[in-house]
């Protein structure tokens, strides 16, 4: 059990703070919602009523969709786009989908490779794009949820002010929908772009999101890529574990 917790502490830790933050959002959002209800001479609602309301659903979904869009675009963009010197980027020259050998596909797969990486055909094609496919599906699903919940929430507000409701099609073209959407997108794009460039010059010791502290500013790629880029063969091979030696040797041979 302790080993399981240690081996999965990153996922479990973020899962836990996600639930705590969602609970905090529900409690704070409920208080804010009821303040507005009272200001409009409407009845306060229970926490259960609030967390099943379109207002809460729209607030949650609009943040989810932008986060999944951010990661989907990053996964897609970093296939081809490069930031020289960034730990978030592939090295210049490795742009693109890479060869089957580099990706350990089909005959180049290792004994420990997933079955769908070895078998070839449609299954390997699907598995080769599964991360982007699932992240994009979650993005589109949460964006759809935002549009449906936002439509209901917007129209409830319209009716409170004796204004006629909008159809769903009109709502997804409305200023409210795009304001909610773009205010989230811009912050995600800023965070990703700034991370890519700041990682060129700044370091965080011990984090795989950073180059090692002593890496040169023009060294591109994370810790694993860094070791695969020898200045001289002897320098790089010295002191590396056996498994890494194999991949370094393969790289040098190429």
């Amino acid at each position, binding site marked *: 059990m302790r080993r399981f917790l240690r081996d999965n502490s990153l996922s479990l830790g973020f899962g836990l703070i996600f639930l705590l933050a969602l609970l905090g959002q529900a409690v704070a959002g409920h208080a804010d919602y009821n303040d507005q209800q009272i200001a409009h*001479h*409407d*009845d306060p*609602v229970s926490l259960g009523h609030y967390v099943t*309301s*379109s*207002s809460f659903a729209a607030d949650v979904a609009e943040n989810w969709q932008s986060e999944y869009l951010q990661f989907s675009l990053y996964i897609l963009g970093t296939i081809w786009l490069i930031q020289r010197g960034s730990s978030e980027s592939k090295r210049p020259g490795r742009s693109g989908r890479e060869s089957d050998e580099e990706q350990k596909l089909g005959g180049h797969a290792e004994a420990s490779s997933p079955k769908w990486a070895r078998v070839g055909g449609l299954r390997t094609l699907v598995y080769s794009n599964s991360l982007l496919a699932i992240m994009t599906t979650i993005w589109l699903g949460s964006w759809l949820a935002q549009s449906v919940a936002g439509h*209901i*929430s917007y*129209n*409830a*507000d*319209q*009716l*409170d*002010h*004796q*204004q*006629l*409701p909008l159809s769903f099609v009109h709502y997804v073209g409305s200023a409210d929908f795009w304001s909610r959407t773009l205010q989230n997108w811009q912050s995600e794009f800023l965070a990703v772009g700034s991370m890519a460039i700041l990682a060129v010059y700044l370091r965080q010791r011990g984090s795989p999101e950073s180059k090692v502290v002593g890496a040169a500013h023009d060294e591109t790629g994370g810790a694993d890529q860094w070791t695969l880029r020898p200045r001289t063969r002897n320098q790089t091979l010295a002191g590396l574990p056996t498994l890494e030696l194999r991949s370094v040797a393969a790289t040098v041979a190429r």
Partner: protein
Amino acid sequence: MACAQLSSDAAQEVAMNAKRPCEKAVRDLQVKGTTVQSVRVYGDSATVSFTGGDTAFLSDTKQGWRVDAAGCQPQAPSAPEDCEVQA
């Protein structure tokens, strides 16, 4: 009876405008249409359109659905409707 279907704010507004109790004042209101044409519900709010063009706006309260505004007619596009009864 009709006043019981109004929200408390709307009932107060009817009585205050007419300077009479709501039960008497409500009989003089010019609300057209008796047949429901369409009902649309969004969250805790709803609108009911009647044949003849009038619209009512309702909200879901602890006492059930109550009328916030009735006898409403559209004004400029996107503007609030002009209502005979309004909270």
